[in-house]
């Protein structure tokens, strides 16, 4: 059977695939590009699969090195005023086996946006605001020094903050969220991933999960607000607070325990449910905890 007949036999989609793109067999290609960039501009990196490693540097350029897989159409590197876009372009009906490994160096104070589907990404030493998202890739960010948002669907998230107070929002569906050394405000949401937060001075913290367990510890500032919620995940919470904290915890069927000797009380004689109220020191920071069936343990640092 001729190639022609075969194409029509396999359908329009496949024929388009065969005809639309240059029919060159490709090996992996190396990447080595540089483009001038503002010291405090914005850099946007998009990749589907493979990896993205971003580092801040003192250069006034964005430098991209790495390699593109055989299935990658091309790498676009475009500057538009203060914005540099680095984008891995795949053919329309890609099989997702097309991956690219990129190492990107950006001016240290850049604002950075990284979007991937399954590529893992890591960001180090970039002090501007970060917007990192992935479907299933892991995201690691170190030295986060500005307000940032990190989102994944199933990839794990790992953040280590710098010492300046920031606002961080880290959300995932099934990925684990790990945050270390952060001061300021933090919001973490997950469905089934775990949350492991080891935090510093907090003015606001909100952590919610459906079934994932959490271990959260931190220092609560005066007048801090903290909210923790889980449907069935267990929560282990440890706080220090110079101006003290007041806890109001509610559970439907999960156990509420603490290391201060305070007993939880039944909400009603006729229905399940427990409530635990306790105050430490001045009771300045307010902590609200809600769970359906997860167990909660509250302690101090």
């Amino acid at each position, binding site marked *: *059977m*001729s*190639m022609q*007949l*075969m194409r*029509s*036999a*396999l*359908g*329009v989609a*496949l024929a388009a695939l*065969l005809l639309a793109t240059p029919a060159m067999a490709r090996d992996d290609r190396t990447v080595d590009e540089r483009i001038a960039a503002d010291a405090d501009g914005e850099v946007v990196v998009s990749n589907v699969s493979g990896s993205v490693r971003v580092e801040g540097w003192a250069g006034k350029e964005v430098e991209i090195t790495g390699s593109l897989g055989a299935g990658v159409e091309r790498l676009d590197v475009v500057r538009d005023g203060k914005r540099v876009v680095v984008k891995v372009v795949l053919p329309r009906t890609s099989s997702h086996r097309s991956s690219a490994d990129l190492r990107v160096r950006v001016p240290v104070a850049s604002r950075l946006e990284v979007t991937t589907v399954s590529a893992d990404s890591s960001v180090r030493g970039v002090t501007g605001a970060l917007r990192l998202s992935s479907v299933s890739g892991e995201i690691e960010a170190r030295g986060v020094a500005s307000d940032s948002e990190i989102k994944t669907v*199933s990839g794990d998230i790992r953040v280590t903050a710098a010492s300046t107070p920031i606002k961080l929002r880290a959300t995932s569906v*099934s990925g684990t969220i790990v945050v270390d050394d952060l001061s300021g405000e933090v919001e973490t949401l997950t469905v*089934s*991933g775990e949350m492991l937060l080891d935090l510093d001075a907090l003015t606001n913290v909100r952590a919610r999960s*459906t*079934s*994932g367990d959490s271990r959260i510890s931190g220092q609560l500032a005066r007048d801090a607000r903290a909210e923790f919620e889980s449907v*069935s*995940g267990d929560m282990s919470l440890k706080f220090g607070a110079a101006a003290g904290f007041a806890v109001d915890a509610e559970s439907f069927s999960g156990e509420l325990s603490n290391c201060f000797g305070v007993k939880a009380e039944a909400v009603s004689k006729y229905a399940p449910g427990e409530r635990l109220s306790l105050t430490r020191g001045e009771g300045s920071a307010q902590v609200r905890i809600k769970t359906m069936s997860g167990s909660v343990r509250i302690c101090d640092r």
Partner: protein
Amino acid sequence: MADGGTAGARAVAVADIEDALVARARRGDARAFERLYREHAGRVHGLCLRMARDPQLAEDYTQETFIRAWRALDRFEARSRMSTWLHRIAVNVILERRRRRDLPLEFVEDAAEYDRDNDTLDTPVEEAELEAAIGSLPPGARDVLTLCGIYGYTHGEAAAMLGIAEGTCKAQLHRARALVRARVASGEAR
């Protein structure tokens, strides 16, 4: 709770969602059925395309398959796999239409046991070339190679779907493999 990523967790998750969709579709919820369509259209169409070789016919057959599936939802056993059930319907549609078009049925001697010869070519070839070789087979051989070779059905399952004896199925498969090998080797598929 389950951390996604294991085949087991996935199978349970998909089964849960699919069972719920089937239940709703049975009660007349067309949107739930549409989700089932979206989920399975690729597999059904893939089968139709290889068996019919014509994209227009393949689309017709795919559409007909889902229409019949909607009408037959009551008879779908929740325990069996929806994709297999849809394939069975698709094969029926294709065979009926073929008979209607009066294609001659091939005669293949009922074979004795064949060795479990394997599918694997000595040298890998481009996907397009293998698809072409399969497409060039006579219908009986092509049907069996598609069901067994591409979609992994057993001789027994494929024979039941095609309405032939299991021995005939084995013979057709053996023949199909030999023909594909020959066509790929000679470059006849190009």
